[in-house]
C-alpha cells in the first residue's frame, strides 16, 4: 500500500522534473548576478485543495543548480535551505499556575503575526551550513526566525522567553513548525528535491517558499516560489457561513435541531 503510494509519488516526481528542466529557461529566477550559479526551483503543485476528509499531505519542491561552465568548479559541496512560511496569525500563549489548589491561566503573551506554518528544510544541519552570524542575518532556522511579542503597547523580540519556547514547542507538536536537517536530498550534485509535509491541521492561505543556495558557508544564490492552500466543499461553506452570517447560521442550525426533534417524535410515536 505504502510502496504503491510511493511509486505513484515518484511518477508525479518524474513529470515534475521533466517540466522543471524544460521550463527552467523560462521561469527560472536568477540569484545574485555576480554569482557563478543560478538556482531554479519549482513545486509540484501551486494549489492544494483540502477536503473534509483531508488527513495530511505532501508537496514536493524540485530545484536545480546551474553553473556557468566558464568558471572553475567549487571544491566544497552545495547546501540548500528551503524555508516555507504560511499565512500569519496573531496567537496568544497562556501559562497555567496553581492558585488556591487549582490550575488557572495566569499569564499570557500575545505574539504579533507569527507564521502559522514554518518549515525549514536543509541538506545538512544548519550550523554546518552557515555561521551563527549568517544564520541570524538571514533568519535561517526556527531559532533565528523573529517572533515579535506585544509588550504593553510596543512590539518587540524577547530573548530567552519561556512563552516563545512554549509557542515553538506546541507548534512543533502539531506539525506546524518543523526543522529538518536532512529535508533536502541531492539527486545529483546539482539537482535536489525536498518534501514539504502538510499536516491535517494546516492553516489555509498563501504560503511562500524561499530557497537559498550556500557554498562554503556563504549565500550564493536564492529564489522563491509560492503556493496556496484552499479548503473546498461543504466544510468550508459551513466555516464561512458561521463567520460571515452568524445570526442566519444560528437560525438555520436551530431549525435543523427542531426538524430533527420533530422527525424523531413522528418516527417513534407510540400513542
Amino acid at each position, binding site marked *: 500500500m505504502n510502496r504503491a503510494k510511493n511509486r505513484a509519488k515518484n511518477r508525479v516526481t518524474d513529470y515534475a522534473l521533466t517540466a522543471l528542466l524544460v521550463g527552467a529557461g523560462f521561469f527560472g529566477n536568477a540569484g545574485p548576478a555576480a554569482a557563478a550559479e543560478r538556482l531554479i526551483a519549482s513545486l509540484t503543485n501551486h494549489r492544494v485543495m483540502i477536503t473534509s476528509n*483531508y488527513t495530511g499531505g505532501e508537496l514536493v519542491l524540485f530545484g536545480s543548480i546551474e553553473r556557468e561552465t566558464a568558471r572553475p568548479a567549487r571544491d566544497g559541496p552545495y547546501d540548500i535551505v528551503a524555508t516555507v512560511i504560511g499565512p500569519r496569525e496573531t*496567537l496568544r500563549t497562556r501559562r497555567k499556575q*496553581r492558585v488556591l489548589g487549582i490550575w488557572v491561566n495566569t499569564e499570557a503573551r500575545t505574539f504579533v*503575526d507569527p507564521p502559522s506554518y514554518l518549515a525549514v528544510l536543509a541538506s545538512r544541519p544548519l550550523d554546518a551550513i552557515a555561521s551563527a552570524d549568517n544564520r541570524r542575518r538571514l533568519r535561517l532556522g526556527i531559532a533565528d526566525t523573529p517572533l515579535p511579542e506585544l509588550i504593553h503597547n510596543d512590539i518587540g523580540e524577547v530573548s530567552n522567553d519561556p512563552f516563545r519556547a512554549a509557542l515553538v514547542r506546541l507548534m512543533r507538536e502539531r506539525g506546524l513548525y518543523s526543522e529538518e536537517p536532512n529535508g533536502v536530498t541531492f539527486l545529483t550534485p546539482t539537482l535536489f528535491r525536498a518534501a514539504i509535509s502538510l499536516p491535517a491541521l494546516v492553516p489555509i492561505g498563501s504560503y511562500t517558499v524561499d530557497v537559498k543556495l550556500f557554498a562554503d558557508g556563504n549565500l550564493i544564490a536564492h529564489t522563491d516560489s509560492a503556493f496556496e492552500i484552499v479548503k473546498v466543499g461543504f466544510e468550508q461553506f*459551513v466555516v464561512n457561513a458561521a463567520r460571515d452570517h452568524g445570526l442566519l447560521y444560528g437560525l438555520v*442550525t*436551530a431549525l435543523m*435541531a427542531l426538524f430533527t*426533534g*420533530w422527525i424523531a417524535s413522528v418516527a417513534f410515536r407510540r400513542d
Partner: protein
Amino acid sequence: MQIFLPIADIPVNVFLLFAMGLAVGFISGMFGIGGGFLMTPLLIFIGVQPAVAVASVTTHVAASSFSGAIAYWRRNAIDVTLALTLLAGGIVGTAGGVALFTWLRALDQLDLMIGLSYVTLLSIVGVLMVGESARAIIRSRMGKPAVLRRPGSHAWFLGLPLKLRFKRSKIYASAIPVLAIGFIIGFLGAIMGIGGGFLLVPMLIYLLRVPTATVIGTSMVLTFLTMVSATVLHAATNHLVDAVLALILMVGGVIGAQFGAHAGARIRGEWLRLLLGLLVLAVGLRFAGQLVLRPEDLYSIRLIGGAP
C-alpha cells in the same frame, strides 16, 4: 470514518460521535433529562475546545428536548403560561450567560469557569440526589411507606406582587420567583451547555409546588426554547456552534433516547435516581481532577485572529 469538524477544527471519528450521542441519548431517555451535562464533558474529554462543546451541545439539547416537548404536548401535560413566564426570565438569563461567556473567553478564563461551574453544580446535585435516593431505598427496605412530601403552607416568595394564575398547574403565585428560576436556568444553560432539566424539575416541584403531571412537560418546553435561543445567540456572537458536530450528536441522541425510555420504565424510581446521582457525581469528580491535578502542559495557544 474520519470527518473534519468545521468549527471545532479537529478531525474525529463519525462513529465515535454517533456512539456518544446514542449513549447520552439512552441515559437522557432513561432519566427524562436533556443530557447536556454529560455530553459537554464528553466532548471536552475527546479534545473539542470547551467553548465549542458548550455552544454545540445547546443545539443538540434543543433537538432532544423538542421531540420530548412534542410528546408531552400530545398528552396535554404542558402548562403554557408557566412555560412562557419561565421563558421570559430564561431569555434574559441566556443573553446574560452568553455575554459572560464572551467576556471570560477574552480573558482566557472561560475553560476554568466552565470547569468550576461543572464541579460545583454537579457535586452539589450529585450528593443531594445520592443522599435522597439512598434514604428512600433504605426506607422501603425497612418496610416503611414512602414519605410523600405534601406541599405545606405557601413559601413567602410565592406571595410577592405580580400574582399570576397558572391554570394547568392549579397554582396562583407571584411571577417574580418564576422569572428568577427561568433566569438561573437560562444563565447556567448558556455558560455550561446544559438544558438544566435536572435542576429545573426539582425547583418547580419543591419551590413552586408544581404538580408532577405538568412538571416534566413544562420543563421540556422551557429547555427547548432556551436552548434554541442559546444556539442562535452563540452563533451570532461567538461563531462557535458546530452544526456538523451537533447534527451527528442529535441523530444519535434521539435514537438512543427511545431505548433509554424503555429501559427506564423497568427500573424502580429511587434506584433510577441513585444511578443518576452517582453518574452526576462521577462527572463532577472527573472535572475536579482536571482542575486540581497538574496539567500535562502548562502552556496553551489560542488563535486571536488572522492577519489580512
